[in-house]
């Protein structure tokens, strides 16, 4: 096929035209009109295929008019259509014809459903870039104007997102018009439109000339920021960031700050929340001087706001705020102007506030240095480690590494231990799960001695937790610990305890032994696995509970690659064969799966040539599904069949792959 493709290409193009006429538009349109929504949706998603079949001209003259006319459908179908059309320029004949896509997208930009409209606007923005400046003014700008003066709010809302893409490439006269339209949408009667305009204000400001920003955008911004609806005002806060970035210090002070000050004290908590939430962006946008004079006092107010939501949002920003202060004088500002407020928040009445603070407060240690941390922050950390809310304690523990760098963790270990123990025994399993996840980190920072002495028993206790997710997490925790502390440590402290559980009367605990072995064998290496673990696993093959037995089969499959051939041949194989005859269906199934895996490994070792052949066929892993195979199948029949599949599936891919490589090599 590879050879034939080259010479046939010329005639293929001619034949292609003949093929096109095989698909009359009526048949395709029938598909797009099918009664079943799902089928309609499928056809729309393959719209590019249809367009390709029709060719560029008929797509323009027949398909697009049809799509424009019949836009009354389920929103799901419309969404797919809006998305498709954004990538359709090539299918209608390239940038010269991009404007043909505007009519259907214009209708889509007016529908009620927000998701559809947003997608249509996204596609319009994309296509706008493909228009020439002339086409933009001839086709695109009129569309924006029509949308902006539409009757129903949906079209005006959509228009808001299109101004910024046409403004930079428009002529001066048209620029004036565009600004005029945007201005009127900013004071639209419908709050939905004002919200849309407010949310695009920053983006629009960025493409305007600086003078226009000052003389036109700033008044709009001031108006929106004092809108009667708080949902509009809060969007102005976002625009504030973009606008401030464009202006000089004096202009920010004169044009933006009065409004921002007002927003930080707005009577609606949603607006104040927004200021808190955007604080870092605002801080960067207005620069260090205004930050010191204005933003820090505003921040202090937000930290003691009457609504917990606002305090929590501000607390989240404490670290970023401090980090971004100018290094000179930073320490003094933090110590005098921020820390007193933080101290208050440590004992806030609301747990979300405390937990927000706890998630960032440790980051202050690096900024303030060793002495300040010990004197001022440490007492706060210790208080938070004793907080009644587990989330607060967890957030402190999860960020210990920041403090470790500055003062070492020993300072905290006295308080740390009771906190960890308490969390480890928390009644909520999610809390226990969270603390387990930090164990490897803690182990690394506290060192092996401290760990053995204080935490090891906790880690072992989790193995017999009554929640499976905890036992599961506990096993993978052990593996990570072994990776940290090494095999010798594992052999002395962990492995014996794990193996003892193999005799536990509770079958769930016996299974945990198997799960631990699965997790640990690789980290522990061949010797420990063969000498200590394998005998226990083999012994458990005689367990009276079927779940244990089939997990034995799974474990043997899992640790097979670590064992040497002798052990596999002499010890593992007979046990698996016995399990393969088990009376329980599941045991049999997993035993057979393990047998074929083990057999494959043994065979690979016997015929190393074949071993290197197999992976060379790409796609082998994908096409070969792991399914149980009969023992007879893998004597040679299997690979032959597999190879056959591979040749068929990968050839066409390979060709294309080669072609791509060729063209790249030219560049």
């Amino acid at each position, binding site marked *: 096929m590879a050879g034939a493709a080259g010479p046939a290409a010329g005639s293929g193009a001619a034949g*292609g035209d003949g093929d096109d006429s095989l698909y009359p538009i009526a048949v395709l349109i029938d598909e797009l009109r099918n*009664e079943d929504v799902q089928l309609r949706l499928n056809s729309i998603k393959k719209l590019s295929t249809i367009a390709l079949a029709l060719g560029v001209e008929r797509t323009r003259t027949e398909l697009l008019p049809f799509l424009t006319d019949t836009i009354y459908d389920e929103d799901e179908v419309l969404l797919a259509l809006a998305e498709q059309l954004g990538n359709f320029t090539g299918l209608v004949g390239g940038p010269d014809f991009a404007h043909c896509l505007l009519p259907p997208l214009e209708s889509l930009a007016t529908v*009620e459903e927000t998701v559809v409209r947003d997608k249509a606007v996204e596609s319009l923005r994309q296509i706008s870039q493909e228009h020439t400046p002339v086409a933009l003014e001839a086709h695109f700008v009129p569309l924006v104007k029509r949308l902006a003066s539409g009757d129903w709010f949906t079209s005006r809302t959509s228009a808001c997102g299109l101004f910024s893409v046409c403004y930079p490439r428009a002529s001066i006269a048209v620029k004036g018009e565009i600004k005029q339209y945007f201005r009127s949408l900013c004071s639209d009667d419908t709050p939905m439109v004002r*919200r849309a305009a407010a949310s695009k204000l920053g983006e629009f400001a960025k493409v305007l000339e600086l003078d226009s920003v000052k003389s036109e955008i700033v008044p709009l911004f001031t108006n929106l920021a004092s809108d009667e609806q708080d949902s509009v005002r809060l969007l102005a806060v976002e625009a504030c960031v973009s606008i401030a970035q464009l202006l000089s210090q004096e202009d920010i002070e004169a044009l933006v700050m009065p409004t921002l000050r007002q927003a930080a004290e707005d009577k609606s908590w949603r607006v104040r929340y927004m200021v808190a939430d955007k604080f870092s962006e605002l801080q960067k946008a207005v620069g260090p001087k205004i930050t010191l004079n204005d933003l820090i006092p505003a921040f202090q107010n937000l930290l003691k706001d*009457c609504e917990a939501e606002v305090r929590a949002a501000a607390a989240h920003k404490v670290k970023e705020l401090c980090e971004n202060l100018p290094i000179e004088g930073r320490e003094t500002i933090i110590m005098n102007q921020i820390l007193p407020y933080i101290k208050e928040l440590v004992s806030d009445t609301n747990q979300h506030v405390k937990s927000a603070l706890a998630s960032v407060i440790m980051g202050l240690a690096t900024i303030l240095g060793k002495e300040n941390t010990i004197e001022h922050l440490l007492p706060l950390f210790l208080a938070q480690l004793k907080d009644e809310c587990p989330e607060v304690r967890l957030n402190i523990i999860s960020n210990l590494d920041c403090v470790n760098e500055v003062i070492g963790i020993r300072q905290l270990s006295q308080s740390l231990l009771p906190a960890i123990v308490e969390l480890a025994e928390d009644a909520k399993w999610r809390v226990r799960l969270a603390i387990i996840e930090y164990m490897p980190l803690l182990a690394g920072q506290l060192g092996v001695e401290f760990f053995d002495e204080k935490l090891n028993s906790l880690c072992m206790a989790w193995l017999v937790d009554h929640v499976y997710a905890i036992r599961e997490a506990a096993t993978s925790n052990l593996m990570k610990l072994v990776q940290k502390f090494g095999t010798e440590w594992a052999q002395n402290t962990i492995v014996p305890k794990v193996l003892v559980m193999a005799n536990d009367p509770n079958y769930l605990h016996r299974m945990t032994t198997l799960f631990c072995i699965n997790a640990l064998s690789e980290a522990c290496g061949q010797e420990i696995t063969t000498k200590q673990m394998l005998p226990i696993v083999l012994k458990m093959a005689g367990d009276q509970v079927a779940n244990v037995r089939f997990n034995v089969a799974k474990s043997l499959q899992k640790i097979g690659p670590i064992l040497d051939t002798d052990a596999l041949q002499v010890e593992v194989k007979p046990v698996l064969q016995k399990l393969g005859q088990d009376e329980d269906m599941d045991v049999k199934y997993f035993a057979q799966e393990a047998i074929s895996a083990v057999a494959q490994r043994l065979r690979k070792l016997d015929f190393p040539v074949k071993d290197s052949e197999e992976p060379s066929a790409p796609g082998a892993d994908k096409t070969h599904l792991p399914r149980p195979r009969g023992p007879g199948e893998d004597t040679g029949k299997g690979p032959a069949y597999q190879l056959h599949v591979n040749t068929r599936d990968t050839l066409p891919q390979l060709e294309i792959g080669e*072609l791509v490589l060729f063209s790249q*090599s030219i560049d």
Partner: protein
Amino acid sequence: MDSVSDLKSKEIKRATLNELVEYVSTNRGVIVESAYSDIVKMISANIFRTLPPSDNPDFDPEEDEPTLEASWPHIQLVYEFFLRFLESPDFQPSIAKRYIDQKFVQQLLELFDSEDPRERDFLKTVLHRIYGKFLGLRAFIRKQINNIFLRFIYETEHFNGVAELLEILGSIINGFALPLKAEHKQFLMKVLIPMHTAKGLALFHAQLAYCVVQFLEKDTTLTEPVIRGLLKFWPKTCSQKEVMFLGEIEEILDVIEPTQFKKIEEPLFKQISKCVSSSHFQVAERALYFWNNEYILSLIEENIDKILPIMFGSLYKISKEHWNPTIVALVYNVLKTLMEMNGKLFDDLTSSYKAERQREKKKELEREELWKKLEELKLKKALEKQNSAYNMHSILSNTNDELKKKPATSVG
């Protein structure tokens, strides 16, 4: 915010408010012109506030207990007083309109988002009285409710007072003059119908369906667009909502005119046919109950030639396949009723059922074939493109070869 501080002052305030309520309701001639300004100022100062964030960020109005307003002990009295004020025989809207203006109403409407059902209940009555007494505010109130609903549907999906506002609208629609203004029709089609898509429909469906039916009783020509609208938004995965939709359809059918029925019978019964074969038995059951409704039965009978062919396939199939015995029994009854309406057609359909199925299967195969061909064509075109690129490149790479020696072969 803090319900235990300043207890003494709070008690004084409560007692004073009580006294005021008592005073306006037992005395006549006490609402004098000079008092209006202060009264409205007092009410505004007490009830207008930015509603606090919900204690429970994942508040689910269907499941969770609402957070009650901490300042209710005195806010309640303010509302009480406000109502007595509005309802007093001495109350004069012509004076009050200077103070109860658009801005006032706007703030009042925002309070409908309160999580406290007691507050919303008061607001409902208050707004109803204002709508009744202030003719100049009516259009404004409708427009603002419109905006609240649109924001609810398309932006936030959250507003606690939807049911209360719909209840007021129900009585407003009732009073619309005929012919209906374009504005009202637009409200029906662009706001009320899309509202059916809301996640929490169960909380206000009764009120919503009432509003829709009110519209149809006013103007029967709206039936077709309304039913088509409902069919467009028909729930795909939520069977609880599907049952509500079926309930609303039955309410509409109860008042439908036979001429209107003819216009929508085809799409409507295609949907009903899907519902009766739903594997969720409540959906199937609710749809089959239509056949217990005398009026609907008479409509079906009149149009049996159209409806029977639509319904037959699903009914026939589920009479054999549905897992729920109650449904199977109901389906048998329905089939029997339909057979009695037109035995000849019923027999024809029974005998052609198999052929019909086979035709459908064939059509399905043809569709697959079509798409397969289209895919092949696409692949071919892609290859052509690749090949022409390949030819170009091989020419170029040959020249390259001569210049630099084996750049292309190293890749190939």
